[in-house]
């Protein structure tokens, strides 16, 4: 039954999407086709699909570890940005630009920066009792401004005609794509490993079990002696590490340099992916593929039909709305009862 809600939500989102397209004067069926099928009609489309799904799945895996313990890291976007900044910094300024160590070093730098950015809210929540939702979000704004400062200031490419962007990363700092015609690159294997680690952690480890108990029944967890602060640290650091790595892979993959806009909102979309995937490793893979398709479809209809790219965010929101609502009908039995003196026409049992 847990699978039913995401499927139902996706179908309902498609229905609302059709109505929406129709109301904009576009024939719904061809538009839906252009949104959801056409992007996957070519090898390049498939490559782009996986390329965009990869960071979403990777980040969602890290976030889900925290969400399971009721640790609400919604600042993955900032951790992603810091990961991309640190990795690019290594790639741009490492003394030997041809070193084979460059990519591994960037990996470590990206992961470390993402974790460091998440460690601040973790410390503040664990030691100072500060709400991590607000802190992670504020830190996202700060990370974005920091990126803007770097690409407008000290890291701006002197040969870049004053565009706010860094120089291109050296070849040794880039993932080489599988085929020069397409952008998909081996960084996708990082995501595959992350999904496996996530599965091991949540389904096969005592620590993961303790985290789930902390989320589902905090009092029971406390009684059993599971430390809440451990769940906070692990939850936030897992999300930070995953988002930092995703930022590194993005910089060393499709981007190849930093500019003031490096993410189409992967960090926020990954939150939805984690929920659609039911905070479960394999569900997240499916959720990531769906979300990636929303991004691709949004870009596609923007180019072919001139529809605004904001549609992607609208669909993301609707999908999450429906998912949450569908849960209700699956986890509760709805029966209508005659209103008594009071007004609760919809009674749940």
């Amino acid at each position, binding site marked *: 039954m847990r699978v039913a809600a995401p499927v139902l939500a996706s179908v309902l989102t498609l229905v609302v999407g059709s109505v929406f397209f129709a109301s904009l004067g576009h024939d719904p069926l061809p538009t839906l086709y252009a949104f959801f099928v056409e992007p996957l009609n070519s090898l390049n489309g498939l490559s782009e699909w996986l390329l965009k799904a990869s960071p979403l799945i990777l980040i969602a895996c890290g976030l889900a570890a925290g969400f399971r313990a009721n640790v609400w890291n919604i600042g993955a976007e900032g951790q992603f940005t810091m990961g991309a900044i640190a990795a690019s910094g290594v790639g741009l300024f490492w003394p030997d630009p041809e070193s084979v160590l460059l990519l591994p070093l960037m990996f470590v730098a990206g992961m470390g920066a993402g974790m460091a950015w998440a460690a601040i809210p973790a410390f503040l929540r664990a030691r100072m009792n500060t709400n991590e939702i607000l802190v992670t979000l*504020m830190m996202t704004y700060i990370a974005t401004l920091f990126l803007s400062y770097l690409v407008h200031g000290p890291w701006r490419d002197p040969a870049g005609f004053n565009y706010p962007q860094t120089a291109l990363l050296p070849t040794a700092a880039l993932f080489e794509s599988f085929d020069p015609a397409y952008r998909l690159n081996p960084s996708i294997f990082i995501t595959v490993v992350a999904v496996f680690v996530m599965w091991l952690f949540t389904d096969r480890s005592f620590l993961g079990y303790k985290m789930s108990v902390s989320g589902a029944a905090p009092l029971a967890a406390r009684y059993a002696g599971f430390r809440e602060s451990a769940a906070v640290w692990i939850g936030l650091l897992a999300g930070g590490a995953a988002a930092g790595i995703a930022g590194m892979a993005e910089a060393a993959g499709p981007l190849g340099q930093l500019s003031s806009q490096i993410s189409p909102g992967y960090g926020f979309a990954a939150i939805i992916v984690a929920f659609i995937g039911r905070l479960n490793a394999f569900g997240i893979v499916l959720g990531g593929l769906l979300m990636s398709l929303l991004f691709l479809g949004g870009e596609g209809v923007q180019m072919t039909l001139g529809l605004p790219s904001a549609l992607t965010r609208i669909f993301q929101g609707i999908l999450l709305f429906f998912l949450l609502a569908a849960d209700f009908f699956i986890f509760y039995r709805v029966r209508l009862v005659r209103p008594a003196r009071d007004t609760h026409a919809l*009674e749940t049992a």
Partner: protein
Amino acid sequence: MDLFIAIFTGTVIAATPLIFAALGELVVEKSGVLNLGIEGMMLMGAALAFGAVTAGYPMPVAILAGALAGVAASLLFGVLALTFLTNQYAAGLALAIFGSGVSAFLGRGFGSEPIEALHGINVPVLSDLPLVGPLLFRFDPMVYLALVMFAAISWFLYRTKAGLILRTIGESPQTSHAIGYPVIRIRYMAVLFGGAMAGLAGAYLSVAYTPLWVENMTAGKGWIALALVVFATWRPLRILLGAWLFGGMTILQLQGQALGLEVPSELLSALPYLATIIVLVLISRNRQMLALHFPASLAKPFRPAG
């Protein structure tokens, strides 16, 4: 002296959207519901109000349209959180993302031209007084409305029976339900009121403060409003003070840029966010102070039994 007047008035104006949004959220949270979607509701309010002005509607209609947009958005959240008993964090986040998308969609035809901003009032004699006039009697009507809302909400929450019931529901919906209060209906009203206030906050930004339409123009103000409620430890007067503090920070940042301080503009822009973190830490460290006015049932779904 002119600089002082500029800073003072600038502070009051910059604080106004925060006062609207945070007071609205205070009422919502006092009823035991946490709506994280303020940013989305503000953006919808901003887009609708701006759109109404560009379509030629008079200012009051436009502002009302903004408030109604906030109500409509909050209704989505209410249905999910109150009727469908979903996780309120997730529902609020969905609203934030959805509102940002819908407002960007609506706003694509607005262009980048500023509109004529909401006028300041002009009271005979008072507005022309030296010093006192510009300091107190030349703001636009929304600034005064925010203060009126502050007074009304303080009075409602702590001086009326309805306010007492609302706070009781926030403390213990079970008890309130047992006594016979319609918990869900009252929570709906609180959520819709919060939506209207967030919509007004957004409308203020787009038709009075900037007065422009830019995608995602709230730039985190909805989240800062959420932080303000925590900072204020759920008390109206402190929301007012907190909003002025943040408004002051925004203005100092602008003045700093104008004075050509040798600091990167990004650092100045980051100040409100940094400040939010710092004040949250300072307040949250003291668990007792936080717990004193904290609505005990906050963000816990409630299902009336039997």
